[in-house]
């Protein structure tokens, strides 16, 4: 399974929750598969999906799923100790780990080589870290969302992209409708 197939599979599970989605193809794919006001699409700022998601989870009670990538987590490694030490039990971080920088041409990341993001997360103090195969992501997410425990899921999937249009929605519109969904 590649990332877009994982997103298609989990879309029904996340659509009723607040979702912060990573820059580039992940946001474009989610937007194409199942656009929701409760989706916050990052149009820029690589690496900050987990940080935005954590800030949002700490600020209010609704469940938050931050969809991140292995490359983006590598670029903002400092996020993992911050998450570990500021537990928000309404927060799920889903790292779609395809071992590559998908949006820029599938250049390999270190997460596809020797570095285990699940092991790094555990070493940073994150207590509930699940690594799963792409096929099992949906079940792992359902379990995480039905519990009340902050969870980090590392979904190991294949590298690869599908053609997908860019998001042309204005950022203030994305933010405004998202904040409406937060308050709803």
């Amino acid at each position, binding site marked *: 399974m590649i990332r877009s197939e994982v997103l298609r599979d989990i879309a029904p599970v996340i659509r009723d929750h607040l979702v912060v989605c990573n820059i580039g193809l992940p946001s474009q794919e989610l937007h194409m598969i199942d656009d929701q006001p409760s989706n916050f699409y990052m149009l820029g*700022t690589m690496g900050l999906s987990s940080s935005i998601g954590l*800030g949002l989870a*700490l*600020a209010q009670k609704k469940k938050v799923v931050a969809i991140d990538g292995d490359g983006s987590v590598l670029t903002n490694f400092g996020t993992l100790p911050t998450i570990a030490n500021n537990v928000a039990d309404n927060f799920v971080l889903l790292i779609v780990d395809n071992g590559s920088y998908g949006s820029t041409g599938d250049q390999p990341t270190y997460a596809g080589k020797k570095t285990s993001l699940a092991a790094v997360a555990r070493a940073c103090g994150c207590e509930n870290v699940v690594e799963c195969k792409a096929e099992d992501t949906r079940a792992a997410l359902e379990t995480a969302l039905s519990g009340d425990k902050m969870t980090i899921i590392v979904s190991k999937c294949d590298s690869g992209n599908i053609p997908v249009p860019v998001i042309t929605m204005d950022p203030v519109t*994305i933010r405004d409708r*998202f904040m409406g969904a*937060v308050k709803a």
Partner: protein
Amino acid sequence: MTIHRQIVDDFTAHGIDFVTTVPCKQLAGVIDEIENRKEIFHIPSNKEDEGMGLCAGAFMGGKRPAIIMQNTALGVTLNTLATLIQFYRMPLPMLISYRGELGEPVACQVEMAVHTKALLAQMLIPTYHFHRREDADELGAILKYTFMCNKPVAILTDASFWKGEKE
């Protein structure tokens, strides 16, 4: 009243309830004060762009965030300021220690000090510079302005400001 307490009183008076910090020697007193306030959620971050991500999320979750950081970190936050805070129009007060100004003992700090105001001007970020103790009397108005216009706003605080004694 200490200047630290005065600043954090202004924060709480303007509803700021979520503060991320990356330490600087000059900011130690304010950070201690933040940590001791029950009405503020204090979340230290490892890097300032990470902190701005936390603030963006907190803002969308209904909080009034602020970041406390050193001017040397401006370089690592430019992309985040442009593509997250400014692009999505979010308010973000940035209380910044202005290292490398008069009284600075460390030469390397001057290297970013000479770029600080130019970078902020280039980013079209409203910038206020606290040099004398009484300059802090404007803090409340600056915070009000920040949440009125939904922009990042910089408050530079130099060594003379922190050293100054209020009569």
